[in-house]
């Protein structure tokens, strides 16, 4: 059958099981868009920005486990995709991006809208292609899908010249099977490594499982729980691993790492064996590598051999698909109760629990952690996916939303991409239309891609947006507060009236600034059929605790303050790092301090002026006045 290149693209997508693509047209991809009209089986979502298209494809992939597809034109269309591609790369998310390219004869001439997109995306794709011949399109697209989803998943970009889209070639799907002689996605671990792993597991006294998103990617939740249950091994999870084992599982300790729980990091530091499952020892989970889990032997089960021994010395590498590896191991894992170890963990846990902000009664202030926790309570009995952006709210979400199922949290962990949440949530909604999709996003990140509200409106889909609005680039402000003597350079940030913004997009907008109203607000959101944006006006200078300062030992955390005491006395004695370096931190302005609860709608708040000059002047005298000034400037009330 002779078809144009453009038709071949759609025929291939249909055969790959694609039913929705996210894209944005332009000259170099126009033949493909023109051919699209013949293929109504595939729904095209017109985004408002190509970055949005890639995040949507990514969100779709993460929610469904299938490959997400994004389409853009050459040059600026393709370069706009780079952030989304890099995001997918860092989090091993399978997406295929198809871009138009100038005609093959114009290649290399700096033609209008020409960019060497394969060159630009080389470091941020799992693989990429430039296709100049119609006859190659089918094979390349088949290879792209195969590469994207097999082994360690990742993004693949296919750049197709305009003439290759226009000209015709014989289309033969079968004949276009992938030819990838060098690609080995299915590595197998050595039998000797299994033996060594079993020896270590069976003889360990204080083992900890480190659960990463590889468990989700290989569908190994049941096997991991069985391992934990058989050998009574506690599980610590990474950010991207949240949900791979239920939060309610008695074996699940909670999140590890920079903003993980203190007892989890302590358990890791005291462990004599770490069983790392589908995680890659990112610097956000290890803290100081030199002192990371010093007593522990390490078993690393991982599909990508280049991750093994990259950051942390591993005693036993088990390279291969996680589920297969665990199925091989499980029958030989000895039952054991490890009572002492669990007693120790219980002790560490008890010490931390009293510091939790949840222990703080409603004092009239709206804390982000309360918003998240109440959101969880109000939505936990529904099938919910939460998509977060990047910043403090992301960490509070990770701490206070209790994820029970794999793929119920979608977040940019590796690249930490602000602007990810809203478009990724739209993609997730297309993957799972029957589920509730919530966006938890900061006022900063939301403003990066809020244009995609128009996409949600045009598509008539419902995603629910909870803006955690602190009128700051909160996480950066927190670092300035802790490590830069509170010089709030370029972090106070105004926004539009988010309620009116939603309304301007013909969507529903709500505002909530009282804890008592969070629950009813969530109910109101769920009752509305439209995409709804809630502006949660929260404490401006709240900080995420606990925190491992960059470069510190994993268990040398800045602990949570004992807030109930602080709220009454204003004392700040409780702020200290375990290693005694408390000077900078003990100066922290405390949430729940004297400032008044938010009660004025965001629209009426004063905009925050630039702080550059003021900070420089005042910081000479001491750090405190800067805080006062900065706070005032940043205040909206």
């Amino acid at each position, binding site marked *: 059958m002779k078809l144009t290149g453009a038709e071949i693209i759609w025929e291939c997508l249909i055969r790959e099981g694609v039913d929705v693509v996210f894209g944005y047209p332009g000259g170099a991809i126009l033949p493909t868009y023109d051919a699209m009209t013949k293929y109504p089986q595939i729904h095209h979502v017109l985004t408002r920005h190509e970055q949005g298209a890639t995040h949507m494809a990514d969100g779709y992939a993460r929610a469904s486990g299938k490959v997400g597809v994004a389409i853009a034109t050459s040059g600026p269309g393709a370069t706009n995709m780079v952030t989304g591609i890099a995001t997918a790369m860092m989090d091993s998310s399978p997406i295929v991006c198809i871009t138009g390219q100038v005609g093959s004869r114009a290649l290399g001439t700096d033609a209008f809208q020409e960019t060497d997109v394969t060159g630009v995306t080389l470091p941020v794709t799992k693989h990429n292609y430039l296709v100049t011949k119609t006859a190659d399109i089918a094979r390349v697209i088949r290879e792209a899908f195969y590469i994207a989803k097999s082994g360690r998943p990742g993004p693949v970009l296919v750049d197709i010249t305009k003439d290759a889209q226009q000209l015709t070639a014989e289309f033969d799907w079968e004949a276009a099977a992938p030819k990838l002689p060098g690609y080995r996605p299915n590595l197998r671990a050595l039998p000797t490594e299994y033996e060594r792993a079993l020896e270590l597991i069976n003889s360990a006294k204080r083992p900890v499982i480190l659960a990463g998103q590889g468990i989700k990617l290989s569908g190994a939740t049941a096997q991991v729980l069985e391992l934990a249950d058989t050998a009574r091994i506690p599980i610590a999870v990474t950010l991207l691993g949240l949900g791979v084992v239920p939060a309610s599982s008695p074996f699940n300790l909670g999140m590890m790492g920079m903003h993980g729980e203190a007892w989890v990091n302590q358990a890791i530091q005291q462990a004599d064996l770490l069983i790392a499952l589908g995680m890659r020892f990112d610097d956000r989970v290890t803290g100081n590598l030199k002192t990371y889990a010093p007593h522990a032997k390490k078993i690393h089960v991982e599909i990508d051999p280049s991750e093994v*021994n990259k950051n942390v010395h591993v005693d036993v590498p088990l390279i291969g698909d996680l589920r297969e590896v665990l199925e091989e191991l499980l029958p030989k894992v000895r039952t054991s109760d490890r009572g002492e170890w669990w007693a120790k963990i219980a002790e560490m846990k008890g010490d931390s629990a009293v510091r939790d902000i949840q222990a703080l009664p409603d004092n009239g202030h709206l804390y982000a952690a309360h918003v998240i926790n109440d959101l969880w309570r109000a939505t936990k009995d529904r099938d919910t996916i939460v998509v977060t952006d990047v910043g403090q709210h992301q960490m509070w979400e990770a701490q206070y939303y209790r994820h029970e199922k794999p793929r119920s949290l979608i977040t940019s962990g590796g690249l930490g991409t602000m602007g990810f949440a809203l478009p990724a949530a739209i993609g997730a909604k297309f993957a799972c239309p029957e589920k509730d999709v919530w966006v938890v996003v900061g006022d900063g990140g939301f403003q990066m891609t809020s244009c995609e509200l128009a996409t949600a409106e045009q598509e008539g889909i419902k995603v629910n947006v909870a803006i955690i609005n602190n009128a700051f680039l909160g996480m950066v402000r927190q670092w300035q507060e802790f490590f830069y003597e509170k010089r709030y350079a370029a972090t106070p940030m105004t926004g539009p009236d988010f309620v009116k913004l939603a309304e301007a997009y013909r969507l529903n907008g709500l505002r909530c600034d009282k804890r008592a109203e969070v629950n009813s607000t969530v109910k109101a959101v769920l009752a509305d059929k439209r995409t709804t944006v809630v502006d949660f006006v929260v404490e401006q200078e709240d900080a995420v605790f606990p925190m491992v300062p960059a470069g*510190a030992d994993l268990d040398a955390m800045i602990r949570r303050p004992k807030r109930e005491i602080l709220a009454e006395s204003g004392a700040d004695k409780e702020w200290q790092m375990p290693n005694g370096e408390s000077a900078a931190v003990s100066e922290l302005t405390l949430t729940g301090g004297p400032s008044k609860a938010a009660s004025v709608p965001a629209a009426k708040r004063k905009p925050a002026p630039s702080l550059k000059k003021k900070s420089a002047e005042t910081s000479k005298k001491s750090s405190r006045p800067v805080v006062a000034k900065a706070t005032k400037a940043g205040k909206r009330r």
Partner: protein
Amino acid sequence: MPKHTLIAYVEDVPGVLNRVASLFRRRNFNIDSLTVGRTEQAGVSRLTVVVDATDAGARIVEANLYKLVNVLRVDDLTHKPALNRELGLVKVKVTAATRSQVLEFVDMFRARVVDVDEESLVIEVTGTPEKIGKFEMVLRPYGILELVRTGSVSMARGHDKLSANPPLVRAEVAASAADDHSHAGVSMSV
């Protein structure tokens, strides 16, 4: 930093060299030399990469090379009996007085004069990179006008071909890789 000699067989497709070079830069490994050429198999090119790395670092390079879809096979020849050869062309100044001395060195190094001029000679020399380095050293006092070296190509000695399934694919990873490649401390970004 010790040097490692890696052999990579790659598909002969556009951009493959770029992928390899980009990988080295991305992973912050310094390439000492990189040569590429055809092999006995159509469609397959062979790279010889000399890289500044310890044994453990070389394992990481290998593992990363394997991630490239167009890379067919990687072997580390560093600790195997292997031939390492490089070609150098040296244009050296000569006078009536020095010409014979230079020719003596050409003889000693089993090099060849490939171009003669009143005031200079062009000499072709092959051998190990060390030998070419020595040759350069002895000629330097006469005045080297131009020097070009190809970079090393390497081949294992003996009858065997490179293993079809080199160790890394079976997941053997050197013990201390992390120690010398770890980026100290934690990154400071938000």
